[in-house]
């Protein structure tokens, strides 16, 4: 286990009556790429700003390298940040923007220039050193902002949705650059975003926040496959969610009664469910099997009608709706559904293996 760099200890941040961050505790490890993800207003940016020293926590303690930093103003911390707007100084040229942090530290002119040029070269924008910020493209500005923050060799870099203004193609390139930089430098990146693709492609660990609280922390695959609770499952949108009551527990095999029938669940976590309690289980979109005919095995399947399909690259997501109005999503490759008639309104069956279903640990109630 890597060493801990930052500790958020029971942090509360309120703005007047609004509680932005609500009793949050979080450890950030040395050298990890941590992504804080959530929809707008979930407290992710406030969390980052508290770490940067731009907002002070109302309650709780933030420790950096073991020392309390609550009262330390941002200009005495080493927590450079890359803003969503980038916040480059328009009245300075590229080189002077990058040199700014070094100048503030009193680094002599020659060293400053050399280090700044090194970074501009490393990020492939050395030829623009003497340009104005307004003369650069979005991607080039992004690199200037990165260079400006990294030139002082910090041990942590904070990024607040830095890619949200870029087009999709540039976004992917910048993601690769960011991941590469983080691995090369071996420093901690704390990255705030609302974008799942950014979070899952770059993060070593992902923190999912909602209404000022942490809903789940984990590696991308872990979160994707085993969401902790209903919120996370719904937020990711990668699973079909079923709510029901546990009718029997037999070792790892759990039977759950829903309004649409009784389903068998053997996926991990199922064993902790207790008879008689209500619970939620999920089945990944990509674990759904579609067929035109009623599946032979009378186990886990649902009948419905196709309501639409959505193409993303090589995969198709079929949306269907059951008789009582639950929407089911199945993500398949083109080949897998070539033999099916998926026109809107067609009758279709979705089935899954008991081991593909997963009981959400955050939704397991105590004994009734």
């Amino acid at each position, binding site marked *: 286990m890597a060493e801990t760099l930052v500790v958020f200890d029971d942090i509360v941040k309120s703005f007047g009556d609004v509680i932005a961050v609500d009793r949050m505790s979080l450890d950030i490890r040395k050298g990890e790429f941590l992504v804080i993800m959530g929809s707008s207003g979930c407290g992710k940016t406030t969390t980052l700003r508290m770490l940067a020293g*731009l907002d002070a926590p109302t309650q709780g303690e933030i420790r950096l390298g073991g020392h309390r930093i609550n009262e330390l103003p941002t200009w005495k911390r080493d927590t*450079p940040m890359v803003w969503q707007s980038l916040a480059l100084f*328009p009245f*300075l040229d590229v080189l002077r923007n990058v040199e700014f942090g070094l100048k503030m530290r009193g680094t002599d002119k020659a060293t400053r220039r050399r280090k700044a040029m090194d970074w501009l070269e490393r990020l492939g924008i050395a030829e623009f050193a003497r340009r104005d910020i307004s003369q650069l493209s979005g991607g080039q500005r992004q690199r200037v902002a990165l260079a400006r923050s990294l030139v*002082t060799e910090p041990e942590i870099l904070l990024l607040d949705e830095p890619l949200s203004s870029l087009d999709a193609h540039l976004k992917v390139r910048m993601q690769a650059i960011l991941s590469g930089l983080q691995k090369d430098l071996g420093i901690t990146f704390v990255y705030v975003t609302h974008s799942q693709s950014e979070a899952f492609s770059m993060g070593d660990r992902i923190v999912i926040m909602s209404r000022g609280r942490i809903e789940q922390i984990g590696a991308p695959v872990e979160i994707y496959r085993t969401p902790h609770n209903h919120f996370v499952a719904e937020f990711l949108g990668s699973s079909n969610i079923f709510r029901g009551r546990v009718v029997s527990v037999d070792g790892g095999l759990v039977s759950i009664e829903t309004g649409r029938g009784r389903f068998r669940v053997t996926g991990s976590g199922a064993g902790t469910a207790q008879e008689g309690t209500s619970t939620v289980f999920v089945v990944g979109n990509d674990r759904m099997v579609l067929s035109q005919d009623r599946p032979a095995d009378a186990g886990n399947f649902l009948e419905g009608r196709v309501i639409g399909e959505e193409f993303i690259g090589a995969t198709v997501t079929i949306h269907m709706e059951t008789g009582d109005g639950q929407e089911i999503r199945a993500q398949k490759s083109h080949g897998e559904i070539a033999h099916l008639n998926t026109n809107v309104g067609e009758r279709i069956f979705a089935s899954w293996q008991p081991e593909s279903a997963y009981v959400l640990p955050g939704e397991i109630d105590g004994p009734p």
Partner: protein
Amino acid sequence: MKKVTIFGLSLSLPLLVWQLLFFAFPLVFLVALSFWVVENYRMVPDFDSVNWTKMFSRGVFWDTYLRTLALAAGASVLVSILAFPCSYGIAFKLSANLRRLAIFLMVIPFFTSYLVRVYSWQIFLSDNGILNAAFGLVGAGPYTMLNTDFGTMTGYLTLCLPLVVLLQVFSLMFVDRTLIEAAHNLRCGRLRTVFLVIIPSARVGIVIAALFCFILTFGDFVSPLYLGGGKPPTLSIMITDTTKAGQQWPRAAVIAIVMIATLLAVAFSAIGYAYRKRA
């Protein structure tokens, strides 16, 4: 070419005609006037450069010119420096409601005539005035303040300070706050951020405010006469003196043209500096 609509024309035409009649035409006349000659206290139309050579060869003209320039430039710098902390406080430290109140208070001075305000300063600044009475209470003074450059400068501050504060406030309010945070985040302390980030960001407004101060004070007649005593004169006082002395309107026209040329030069270089891309 852009199409000229009757609607647009009917809105803009009156002002264009006004400007043509009462600005462009008199200006041309002023230039012509500067080449006329005065014979037996009467002006005669002519094309003689004697007024120009006479004025430019007089030491007192150049002394007055430099004095006026120095006073106006000094006032611009002084007013800008005095106004800035106030503007900074209004723009960054006050709540929205208090800021509105402060802006309102800055507008109130314009309700009273500038001349009235300058006269009331005489009561404060004269040898037996309110200020010297106050100094007397603590055993200091009396100080001569009326009819000095100090008096002139006091009048200039009265004229310009509220306007400069307003212009500075509006430019400071539009400074991107994330730039300030970014500077702090890069270890730039609070005072340093003012000089390295806030002033460069608000440069256009700050320079324009100082330029307004220069324009207003360079041509001002009231303060240098009623608070500065008029001796030595400024250019606008010299104009009135010249017209009174032997009907020398053509020579007064020379002074006026020199003043206009100076203001144009200063205005263009100030605006050029304000909008230059880099600090």
